[in-house]
C-alpha cells in the first residue's frame, strides 16, 4: 500500500496537472518540436525519474504527460492489448494525475500510447500515437559505439546497415529482422520504428497522424510528422515483406486482415487471436459467424 499512498499524495491538489512539473514538460516539448522538425532524428532530452523503472515505458509516459490536456481521451495498449498489466497501470496513472478520460476504442482516442504495436484502425489527423522505445538507435546492431553511430547519422553513412541486410539475404535468403525493422524517414535518417512487427511498418508511411517515439532509459525522443515518407530498407530485387497470415483468421472475431498472435492450446494445437484487442472486441460485437 505504500506505493498507493505515495501515488495519492502525488495526485493531491498541490501536485501539478499530469504529474510532471512545468520545467520537465517544457524540456520534453522542446525536444518534441525539434524531433518533428527533423523527422527520424534522435533528439537527446533529460529523461526524468518516473514512479516506475526506466525501461518500462518511461519515455512514452513522459511524452504523453507533456501533451495531455484535461479534455483528452487516452488509450494505452501493450503489444496491442488494452488489458495488460503495464497498460492498465499506466492508464490508472494518467487517470489519477491528469483526470483524463480513458478508452479502449482507437477511433475515440485523441492520444494513443503504445508498446510494440500500431492499432489496426487507421489513425486520423486528429490523433497522436506515442510509442515506447527500448532501443532508439537503429544502427546499434552493426555499431556498438554511440560516437560512431552519431557520426554515421550525421554523414548519412548507412552502408553498414545495408551490408547487414545484404549478408542476411546471401546467407539465409531472407532478411531476418522480424521487428524493429529499420526505415528511412523522409529520405534522410535511418530510424528504429520501435519493436513493432513488420506488419505495422507500412502504417507509418504518409500517415495522417503524428507519431512520437520516446526512449526514457536511453534519453532520446524522435518523431514522424504526418504525411512523411517512411520507407523500410529494401533491395530492388528483394522487396520488404510483411508477415504472412494467409489461411489464418482470428478465432474470436474471424478477422483475416489483422496481425494475429499465435496461441498454443492445452492440447498442443495452434489457434490465432487478433493482437489488437480493442479492434477485435469492436469487430466481435458486430460480427456474426456464418
Amino acid at each position: 500500500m505504500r506505493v498507493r499512498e505515495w501515488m495519492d499524495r502525488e495526485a493531491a491538489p498541490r501536485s501539478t496537472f499530469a504529474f510532471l512539473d512545468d520545467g520537465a514538460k517544457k524540456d520534453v516539448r522542446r525536444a518534441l518540436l525539434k524531433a518533428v522538425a527533423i523527422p527520424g532524428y534522435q533528439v537527446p532530452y533529460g529523461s526524468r525519474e518516473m514512479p516506475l523503472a526506466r525501461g518500462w515505458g518511461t519515455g512514452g509516459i513522459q511524452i504523453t504527460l507533456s501533451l495531455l490536456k484535461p479534455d483528452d481521451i487516452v488509450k494505452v495498449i501493450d503489444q496491442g492489448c488494452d488489458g495488460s498489466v503495464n497498460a492498465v497501470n499506466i492508464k490508472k496513472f494518467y487517470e489519477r494525475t491528469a483526470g483524463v478520460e480513458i478508452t479502449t476504442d482507437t477511433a475515440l482516442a485523441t492520444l494513443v500510447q503504445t508498446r510494440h504495436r500500431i492499432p489496426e484502425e487507421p489513425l486520423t489527423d486528429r490523433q497522436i500515437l506515442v510509442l515506447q522505445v527500448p532501443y532508439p538507435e537503429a544502427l546499434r546492431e552493426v555499431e556498438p559505439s554511440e560516437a560512431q553511430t552519431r557520426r554515421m547519422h550525421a554523414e548519412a553513412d548507412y552502408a553498414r546497415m545495408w551490408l547487414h541486410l545484404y549478408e542476411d539475404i546471401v546467407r539465409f535468403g531472407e532478411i531476418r529482422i522480424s521487428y524493429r525493422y529499420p526505415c528511412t524517414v523522409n529520405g534522410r535518417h535511418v530510424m528504429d520504428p520501435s519493436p513493432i512487427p513488420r506488419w505495422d511498418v507500412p502504417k507509418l508511411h504518409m500517415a495522417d497522424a503524428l507519431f512520437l517515439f520516446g526512449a526514457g532509459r536511453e534519453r532520446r525522443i524522435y518523431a514522424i510528422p504526418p504525411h512523411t515518407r517512411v520507407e523500410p530498407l529494401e533491395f530492388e530485387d528483394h522487396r520488404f515483406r510483411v508477415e504472412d497470415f494467409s489461411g489464418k483468421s482470428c478465432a474470436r472475431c474471424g478477422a483475416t486482415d489483422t496481425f494475429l498472435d499465435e496461441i498454443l492450446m492445452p492440447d498442443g494445437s495452434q489457434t490465432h487471436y487478433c493482437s489488437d484487442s480493442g479492434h477485435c472486441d469492436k469487430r466481435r460485437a458486430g460480427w456474426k459467424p456464418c
Partner: protein
Amino acid sequence: MEALLRAHGITRRYGPGCALCLDSTGADAGTNRCPTCGSVWACRDVSLELRAEEALGIVGESGSGKSTLVKLLHFDDPATSGYLELARLRQLEGIGGIYADGCDWSRDLFSMDRYRQRRVRDASMGIVYQHPHLGLRMGVSSGGNVAERLLSAGWRSIGAMRQRASHLLERTEIPLSRMDEPPRNFSGGMQQRVQIAKALSGDPPILLLDEVSTGLDLSVQARVLDMIRTLREELRLSMVVVSHDLGVIHLLCQRTMVMKNGQVVESGLTDQILQDPQHGYTQLLVASQLQ
C-alpha cells in the same frame, strides 16, 4: 599526361604545436616530435601531383609519414592544413558543390564536409591497407566486403552487386566457391587480394596502396604485385604506392617521393632516384637495399 589529383602543403600535426616546432622538427632536425611541446608532425608541408594512369611511389622508413599521407588523401584522418583538389572527373559530376562552374579543378576537398568527402572517396578512390583487418570486415563474407562500397555508393540490387563482386573476385584470383566465406578464413595473400577487389569495386580512377605487399612471403608478394600491375594496365588506374621496399617502388612506379620525418626530402623519376640519389637519406636507403 594530365594531372588527376594535386595536393599542396599537406600537414598533419598531433598535439598543440608551438613557436619552436618548425625549427626543431623535420628531416634536418632528425625527428618529427617537437622537444618543447611534444607535438608530432606526422606530415609537414607535403605537396604532390598525381597524373592520369601514373603510379607515384612514396618511400621512407617507418615513422616518416608515408601512411599518414595516404590516410589524409583518403580522408581517414583530417589534415591540419593544406589543400587537396581533384580534376574534373565523370564519377564526381553527380555530387553537388564539388566543382565551381567552368573550373577544371574541384574546390578544396579538405575543407568540405565529411558527407561530401565520403562521397568523393567512394566515387574516386580505392585503398588497400597493409593490414587486411583495417580494410576488411573479417566477419562479413568476401562478397559482402566488396558490396559494402557499392552499397555506400547507392547500389540497391543484390543481383547486380553479386555479379560485380564475383567479377572482381575472379579478377583478383579468389575462387568463386569461397565468395560467401568471411576473409578471416583466408590466408594473408588471399585477404590482400580481397582487399584489392574491394578497393576496385566502385571502379575508381585512383588506387591508394599502403604497404600492400609487406608481410607476405616472397612468392605471394610477386603474385600480388604482378596482379596490381596487370590491373593498372587494364583499368588504367592512377596509383599512389606507399612502401619501404625499393623493389616494390621500382617495379610499379614511374615517379617517386622520398620522405623522412614527415617531410619530402627528394622527388623525381624512380630510376633517377634509385641510380643517382642526391639526398643523404636517399643514398642511405638505396645503399642499404639487399642485393
